[in-house]
């Protein structure tokens, strides 16, 4: 669905992208992870035809993003990082504008507002909406022409947990309906929860890529944390996952009914990022 090869981009002296390559399959949710300034938004802008790359190429559904921009726009929906809605217009006026531009029925607006539970807000001026509701309007705007691929730049940045959760649910539903999604985020939990595959971007380079589960297993220390009841209180113990000794100890605790919980100690995506870049994720 998306193929990127050796993509590079510089802003003056600063190399924003240093030859990145990756692919996204149809029906996949792909996450670009990285701190601010890593090159996530630059990548997304190149892929959506808003910015020209200096080198390399990117193809979406066979279209060259640098040359076939107009054809490409029919197949992609973009949710930008900034809330770029027309603030004085109502929700419906904002959405109807894009229905008319795409040549689709303005009934689409009512359909998606209903789907996302915002029918009662359709005549509200956008400037009176909360950030979470504006984010939903942005998402509907990107969906009006029924695109095959959705690009989302930091879709839950600045949202409260409840609004972020709603956006996550909507994205998972859209993915289950067959939409391919590429999102950027610096929220590790969000990416872990939503994405089939992720790529860590650091200073314009992909430093690690794979599925969240694979990455965590690959970087796992193969230890587990066991919470046991010693009679006078709970104690946390760590054991190797391998070896007869750990098996015997765990077996004894289980026989003595001491085990209260067992957790594997695989690293979080944030831990992996720090490990591969030597840089704090902020």
């Amino acid at each position, binding site marked *: 669905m998306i193929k990127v090869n050796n993509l590079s981009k510089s802003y003056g002296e600063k190399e924003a992208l240093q030859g990145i390559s990756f692919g996204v399959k149809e029906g996949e949710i792909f996450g670009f992870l990285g701190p601010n300034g890593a090159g996530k938004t630059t990548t997304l802008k190149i892929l959506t035809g808003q910015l020209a790359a200096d080198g390399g190429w990117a193809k979406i559904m066979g279209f060259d993003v640098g040359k076939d921009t107009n054809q490409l726009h029919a197949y992609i929906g973009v949710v930008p990082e900034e809330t*770029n*809605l027309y603030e004085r*217009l109502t929700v419906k006026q904002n959405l109807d504008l894009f229905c008319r531009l795409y040549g689709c029925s303005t009934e689409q607006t009512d359909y998606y507002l209903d789907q996302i539970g915002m029918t009662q807000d359709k005549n509200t001026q956008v400037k009176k909406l909360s950030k979470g509701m504006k984010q939903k309007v942005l998402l509907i705007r990107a969906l009006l022409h029924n695109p095959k691929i959705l690009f989302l730049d930091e879709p839950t940045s600045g949202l409260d947990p409840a609004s972020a959760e709603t956006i996550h649910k909507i994205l998972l539903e859209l993915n289950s309906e067959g939409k391919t999604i590429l999102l950027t985020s610096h929220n590790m939990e969000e990416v872990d929860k939503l994405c089939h595959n992720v790529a860590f971007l650091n200073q314009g380079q992909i430093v690690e890529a794979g599925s969240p589960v694979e990455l965590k297993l690959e970087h796992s220390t193969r230890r587990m944390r066991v919470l046991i009841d010693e009679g006078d209180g709970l104690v946390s113990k760590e054991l190797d996952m391998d070896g007869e000794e750990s098996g015997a100890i765990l077996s004894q605790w289980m026989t003595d009914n001491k085990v209260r919980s067992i957790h594997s100690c695989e690293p979080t995506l944030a831990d992996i990022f720090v490990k591969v870049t030597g840089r704090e994720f902020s």
Partner: protein
Amino acid sequence: MILSLKRIGAIFIKELHDLKTNINILIMYIIPIVIAYIYDKLIPGMPEGFALAFGLLFLVVMVGMYVPSMMIAEEKEKKTLGVLLLSPATPMEVFIGKGLLTFVSVLVSIVFLVFISSGNGLAHLDIILVGGILTTLFCIMVGFIVGLLSKNQMATGVVGTPVYMALLLIPMLGSMGSPTMEKIAKAFPTYYYNDMLYMALSGLEEKKTLLDMMPEVGILLGSLIIAFGLLAFVYRKRGLEQ
């Protein structure tokens, strides 16, 4: 290049909705009407046709330039142009849709101003409209150039005010008798619209029909072509989003 009337219409409708709730811009339509009314009805001894001519020039120049410059600058400031250009809308359709609203609204305001003013404005509506149409189109293009050169709405004041003042005040000063000022004023297309209005409305000139004013119409047409060329040049250099 194929232009889509539906997409131009979509942008026109959006701008119309936006205009209805934009107090800053609505005030710009009211000011020339109020000024013309005050000169016409409340100040005695005004030369014949002066109030209407001043109101019309103010309307065409200030609204014609200010509204499109603010439209473009606001889109740049709020970063809404990017998403508009991700849709099938082309930059040309965006310009036409935005300019069309300014054009139609200025024409409606011109007719309104003529109707509420005393004097012989109605008798010379053809001159007022032909000159008004050409000057409005010129001013819309200049307004777009100001919008393209401004980073945000605030910057349109810095970039645009000298241009607005030059196009509004210099032609008026040029018609007050100073030969030097008149020479300078003749370099500005708005001088010729002001001249057409004076000839038609003052009752003092012999040239009173539209046919008599073909040289002025020709100059306005030429100015329009130059403004279009300049707009195309600035757009190519800066694009819509810079």
